[in-house]
């Protein structure tokens, strides 16, 4: 569905991503694990053009986008095809839960307000927050905010959901409800790229696990293989520390 070729991102002369190649198939759920500062989040942010990579190519349904020469229309297409779930939720502070979910449908996709709100209410029921439709983010708990954040990503029916450390900013008491929701989204075969430090969660939902270090994909494979008998020494030493 999306092929990434030679993706390179450099911050202040230091490469954060060094020529990443990755093929994402439709319906595939990929978990990215690895130490902090190894480019996991940057990879997600580049796919959504929140960062402009220095080099590389995205291939969508056979059409190629050169990341350095991407036109505004191509950047928008990439953003419509991907939906981002942020570590810090990043809900629109001036909009209610319902409005947060409906905003993209109304403003970007040009849907009528009524149909967008109906869709938002449907999603709110689905994520168990129907009673919070008119609540502003400031009055929601961290867990509730992140569930709305996931709801916002679901609303756009994007082909690929990019989930960036969805529970890292949460108090421990809210982690479970967010992981449960994401598990449900994953079970519906939503194509996903998830950066996470929750290894049990990664094991449960992922079809494929990528281990990243130093801006490269060091090793990848099915979770049974990566978590039990990884080939690479670095993967082993990382997993020994976190498991």
């Amino acid at each position, binding site marked *: 569905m999306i092929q990434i070729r030679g993706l390179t991102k450099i911050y202040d002369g230091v490469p954060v991503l060094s020529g990443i190649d990755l093929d994402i198939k439709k319906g595939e759920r990929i978990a990215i694990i690895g130490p902090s500062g190894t480019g996991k989040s940057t990879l997600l942010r580049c796919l959504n053009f929140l960062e402009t990579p220095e080099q590389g190519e995205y291939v969508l349904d056979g059409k190629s986008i050169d990341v350095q020469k991407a036109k505004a229309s191509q950047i928008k297409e990439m953003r419509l095809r991907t939906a981002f779930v*942020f570590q810090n939720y990043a809900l629109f502070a001036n909009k209610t839960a319902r409005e947060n979910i409906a905003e*993209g449908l109304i403003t970007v996709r040009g849907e009528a307000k009524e149909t967008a709100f109906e869709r938002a209410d449907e999603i709110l029921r689905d994520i168990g927050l129907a009673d919070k439709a008119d609540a502003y983010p400031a009055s929601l708990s961290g867990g509730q905010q992140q569930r709305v954040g996931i709801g916002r990503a679901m609303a756009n029916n994007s082909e690929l959901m990019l989930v960036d450390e969805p529970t890292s900013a949460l108090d421990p008491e809210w982690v479970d409800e967010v992981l449960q929701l994401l598990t449900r989204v994953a079970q519906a075969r939503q194509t996903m790229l998830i950066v996470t430090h929750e290894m049990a969660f990664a094991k449960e939902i992922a079809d494929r696990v990528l281990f990243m270090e130093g801006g490269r994909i060091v090793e990848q494979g099915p979770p049974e293989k990566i978590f039990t008998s990884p080939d690479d020494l670095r993967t082993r030493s990382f997993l020994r520390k976190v498991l």
Partner: protein
Amino acid sequence: MRALDLDYMLGLLPILLKYLPLTLGMASVSMILALLLASLFAIIRVVRLPVLDAATRVFISFFRGTPLLVQLFLFYYGLPQLFSFLTAIDGISAAIIGLTLHFSAYMAESIRAAILGVDRSQWEAAKSIGMSTGQMMRRILLPQAARVAAPTLINYFIDIIKSTSLAFTLGVTELMGAAQKEAAGSFLYFETFIVVAVIYWAVVESLAFVQTQIENRLSKAVNR
């Protein structure tokens, strides 16, 4: 010290109040135009639009760096000498243009600071769902910036109301101009100008009530 002529003051009040609508009208129109212009300047500066950014900076520097009275004289007495089509401009329009440009320069900086104060995550979330810069500004950043900038902007509105009194130097008979004429006839300068001062004061004080309403409305998203 002589006694105040209270009868004169009481009689003067209704005469002067007739000019209050003009004062408030000039102030309101100037405020609305200045807000629109200032928002535009602020966005140009935040997004760093090439050429326009530099031009906006020069504009702001000039209108903040020179006295309002000088600007009003330039518009009303000066520019028509250069451009003959401007000779038809009346004092009220010249005052509104002057007040608008002058205060837009100040307000642009307040609005710019307020936009830059909105958390970066709001920009990223807006961009990530595919919003254009204009959509992001209109739907996400400006509404949030408005809450932060509101108290300062309302202060500028108070300043605009008081600054309309300078329009009398352009021959406009607004509140101050009318008072000037009354005083010239009665020679009771103290009585006349204390009545004018009280009228301005009362108007500004009643704005404090409006200010609370506006601020409450804008903060409904952050009140728990």
